[in-house]
């Protein structure tokens, strides 16, 4: 807002008055008319439900049976629920593998793309295409390709003389398999890196080369700092979406009758929450689970943001 840069400092009272006087203008009312749809949606579908969700988390609400207030019971239950621990661990392990794998593959692809001139445009399209595949379809391809006995992945490994694991049934291989399949749709992240790499001023490389910097030094001391804000941005986005992973694992391992003992290894947090809410109708408990997820995501993002202050370099002045 325009709160005076040239005018002498106003007291809080004057500031409040000036602020409120804005409401006498016709423009202000027009502006509120424009943003009214969002305000309505925010109240009805976001903030209202947030409050409701918190209240629900203190009850044993189930739609079907009578509801009563249970205080902190849901929260103490989820601390002791071994499945919550399992689901949280699964989700964290998956995310910890997914995020670096995606970032490294995306950056590698983007850097090679920039070295082949105009042909890069064609290859960019090719690498982006998997991103257009619906996640349910990706999950089915995962089941087919990674099948232990007749999947094409293990056939390929066989040719190399390597024994392939039972990706879809061996609990210790389920998550790596899902990560590999997810890396197939790395295209979006790659496009972000491409844009960042293209905006690195060419003179920096020339100057570095003149100083005799090796290509590794140029990568470490020019490229990485110059694209660090894009790296950080995707780091956060990928982490948040990893922590909320649902569709691929649910499609491949849950649902009508398709459950097996390997499902446990693919029980991600949101899947557990979803099943508690909409399969077992334990909506109070599921609401408590949702708030725990919210806290986990907030804490992780906060740590990442703190870390970024040390690693992200902003070229020129950042407003």
């Amino acid at each position, binding site marked *: 807002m325009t709160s005076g840069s040239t005018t002498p400092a106003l007291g809080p009272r004057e500031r409040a008055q000036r602020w409120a006087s804005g409401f006498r203008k016709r423009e202000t009312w027009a502006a*509120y008319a424009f943003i009214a749809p969002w305000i309505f949606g925010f109240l009805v579908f976001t903030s209202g439900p947030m409050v409701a969700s918190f209240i629900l988390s203190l009850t044993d609400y189930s739609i079907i049976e009578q509801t009563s207030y249970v205080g902190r019971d849901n929260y103490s239950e989820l601390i002791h629920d071994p499945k919550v621990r399992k689901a949280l661990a699964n989700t964290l392990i998956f995310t910890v593998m997914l995020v670096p794998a995606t970032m490294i593959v995306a950056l590698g692809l983007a850097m090679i793309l920039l070295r082949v001139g105009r042909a890069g445009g064609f290859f960019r399209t090719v690498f982006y295409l998997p991103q257009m595949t619906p996640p349910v379809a990706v999950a089915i391809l995962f089941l087919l390709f990674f099948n232990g006995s007749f999947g094409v992945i293990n056939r390929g490994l066989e040719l190399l003389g390597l024994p392939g694991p039972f990706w879809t049934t061996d609990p210790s291989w389920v998550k790596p398999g899902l990560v590999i399949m997810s890396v197939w749709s790395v295209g979006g992240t790659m496009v972000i890196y491409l844009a960042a790499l293209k905006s690195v001023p060419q003179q920096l490389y020339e100057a570095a080369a003149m100083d005799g910097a090796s290509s590794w030094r140029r990568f470490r001391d020019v490229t990485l700092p110059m694209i660090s804000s894009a790296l950080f941005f995707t780091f956060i986005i990928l982490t948040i979406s990893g922590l909320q992973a649902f569709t691929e694992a649910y499609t491949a391992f849950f649902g009508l009758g398709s459950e097996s003992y390997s499902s446990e290894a693919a029980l991600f947090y949101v899947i557990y929450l979803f099943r508690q809410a909409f399969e077992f109708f334990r909506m109070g408990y599921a609401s408590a689970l949702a708030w725990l997820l919210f806290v986990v995501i907030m804490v992780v993002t906060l740590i990442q943001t703190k870390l970024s202050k040390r690693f992200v370099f902003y070229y020129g002045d950042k407003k």
Partner: protein
Amino acid sequence: MPSKTASATAAPAPPLGRQRRGWPRPQGTLATRGLFFAVLLGLSVLFIYPFVWAISASLKPREHVFDNRLIPEVWQPSNYTEVWDIAPVLTWFLNSVYIGVLAAATVTISSAIVAFGFAYFRFPGRNALFGLVLATMMLPAAVTMIPVYLIWNELGLVNTQYPLWVMNLFGSAFYIFLLRQFFLGIPRELFEAARMDGDNFFTMFWRIAMPLAKPALVVAFIFELQASWNDLMRPLIYLRDDALFTLPLGLKTILDSFGQGGGGEGDYQIIIAALVISTIPMIVIFALFQRYFLEGIATSGRKG
């Protein structure tokens, strides 16, 4: 709103179309360039292989699906007619198109209206409210999922398709952010001139701002179309009758009843045919709007 991931800590985002579009000239000797080219070709094969495999497997008889030949030994295109027969795939397809177009059109227009409010006007509360818009992007969908379901339940609209698009009438944070950036890039004089010509705020928005924002509107439309087309969780929550299903839910149903898990006999050729049917429309959309997808992602930082 669910199925969107973007962050309030967005990287500096130039308005659409202002980034450098060209490719740097290739460097290095012919040999290294050739090497990079070969590496890219090899990787392309890896990325394209699943598509080719799936299309070819969808045309094979059941016992040949896993022979991994890229050209079927025995052609069986009847898988495609069979999949229409055993499941209402055409209905699901049309449902997906209907919901997708409706969801995309409503969210694009409503977000544009809200974005214009934030971009053009100066008014008390603007920065705080816009901060709130950005903050909602950080909220996991799971937190509001249950109460929102209860609202629809209260309205008696569970097991209808309304919950899959009606909330889009109220704008969505990511698109509001994207479109506001775009509107901010339009020279203010154009609006002042329109005001002189007697336009009111709304006609000015509709006649001047909207046509100029076409590229950003297309980006919002196709992103939401794809998000709606891909969504599995909300159809799982809200739809019961299979006549209302969308393609992802239908595909999941086919997988459960024909795969080996749910007592099916492993009729994978049918499942793969359905998979191809659900993927091709998105490939076509990408072919038509490639530029918008790539620039939309590069400038807004949205990851698919």
